[in-house]
């Protein structure tokens, strides 16, 4: 019976081989060859050059900050939502996904309209005789854009696991004399690790590779690694370098995922 259940993975495996593995091989082929088709590691090693290193570092910095902010905002929110009475499941999911149905670029442009020097927020502040907000075209604005765009990806997976937690466990912990903080740290948090890790992945990865947000809200004053890769593909037509840098980015993300899987295991052990 177990074997036949495994067969269910067949469509996915076929799909993965066709549309994930083969395109990936193409990226590796481009990344590891030069224009003449000869093997080279230069495109991958190019990450060490100062301008690429800086772009990579900036991207890591901003995406880590965004991920942390998302997590801090999302966890309490998910707890509140999960604690709400009644079956609101679909409603809550929808209300967080709804803003995303307005096109990504339009939403980000709207933030530009809000944050600009003569933008909506500053007009309101001026009307109230408050000092103007000066964050457009700064890293703060980029973080804001990332948090805004990726917050739902953090809230939904955490909410999904929180609502599944058996409330008896929480009551049991309380009966056994745990206070609120202890219950949270010993019961709720370990049980929600899977959701938190999903959330972190879903926020960190797109934040790390984005280039549109840094263009529209950061005024392109800082190049992120995503901007560099985009530029290699769309401006310089140097697909080899672009692919080489993507390989580095990919390896970096995989490394992080492996680390998170390790922590995930620990989480499970704790939960048991």
């Amino acid at each position, binding site marked *: 019976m177990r074997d036949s*259940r*495994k067969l*269910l*993975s067949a*469509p*996915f495996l076929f*799909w*993965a081989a066709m*549309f*994930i593995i083969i*395109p*990936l091989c*193409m*990226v590796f082929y481009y990344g590891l060859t030069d224009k003449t088709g000869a093997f080279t590691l230069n495109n991958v090693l190019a990450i060490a050059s100062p301008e690429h290193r800086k772009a990579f570092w900036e991207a890591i910095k901003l995406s880590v900050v965004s991920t942390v902010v998302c997590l801090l*905002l999302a966890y309490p*929110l998910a707890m*509140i939502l999960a604690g709400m009475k009644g079956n609101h499941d*679909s*409603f809550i*999911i*929808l209300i967080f*996904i*709804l*803003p*995303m*149905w*307005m*096109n*990504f*670029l*339009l*939403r*980000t442009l*709207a933030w530009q*309209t*809000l944050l600009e020097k003569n933008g909506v927020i500053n007009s309101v502040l001026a009307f109230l005789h408050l000092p103007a907000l000066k964050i457009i075209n700064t890293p703060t604005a980029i973080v804001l854009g990332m948090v805004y765009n990726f*917050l739902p990806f953090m809230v*939904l*997976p955490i909410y*999904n*696991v929180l609502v*599944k937690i058996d409330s008896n466990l929480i009551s049991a912990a309380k009966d056994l004399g745990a206070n609120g903080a202890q219950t949270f740290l010993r019961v709720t948090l370990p049980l929600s690790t*899977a*959701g938190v890790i*999903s959330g972190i992945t*879903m926020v960190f*990865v797109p934040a790390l*590779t984005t280039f549109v947000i840094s263009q529209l809200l950061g005024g392109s004053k800082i190049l992120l690694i995503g901007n560099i*890769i*985009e530029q290699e*593909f*769309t401006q310089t037509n140097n*697909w080899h370098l*672009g692919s080489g840098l*993507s390989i580095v*980015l*990919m390896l970096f*993300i995989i490394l992080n*995922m492996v680390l998170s*899987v390790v922590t995930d295991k620990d989480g499970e052990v704790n939960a048991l």
Partner: protein
Amino acid sequence: MKKLYISLIFLFLYAPIFTLIVLSFNASKTRAKWGGFTLKWYFSLFENEAILQALWNTLLLAALSALIATVIGLVACIAMQSMKKKTRALILGIANIPMLNAEIVTGISFMLLFISLGVTFGFGTILLAHITFNIPYVILSIQPRMKQLNTSTYEAALDLGANSLQAFFRIVFPDILPGILSGFLMAFTMSLDDFIITHFTKGPGVDTLSTKIYTEVRKGIKPEMYSLSTLIFAAVFILMLLVNYTPRKKEK
């Protein structure tokens, strides 16, 4: 306290949306200037065949790709349950690859693949690409729920004589339904929003809203796009209210 927190988050999430709605009534063509109140962009929207066709393509694409991705993802999650931890991790890893790549790399690698296969670019190629990048979102939504499943109820059902399909649909399915639903919605949304991958896999004359908007960025967004977004928002919002409140009235 809780209410305040939720309201602040909502303000944050919806502030740009209200900006877009306000812009849709702006008589001036540029977003930087308020030119007075108008409804003209709503009328010109319905005369703009290109935008309406793009809307249709976008919705069809999102629905089909989300549906197929959900089926593939769900089936893969079920299969993964009975796998060893290592195999499971491997499959999860593969599923996540499209998310790991910068979108532009995924887009270009798809283009290279389709060229080497000799496929004609068009709606079909975009659909294949969208299904692929949707699958990880589905798996990431369903997988955590699956992990929390209590397998003993499922096995109890089997012991009581249910076949595995019955046991699945009676016991497992209701439990993971929210995960499936959120996976489907997320996939639908990702597909709606995607530009880069669509751009590199589309053929001439097939446009989605995103590709239309991105080309418009060069010369400024057409105000019709704001009015369309407002209508979409209103439609989904009303739908949401209906879905949420109809059954409760019955209860009362």
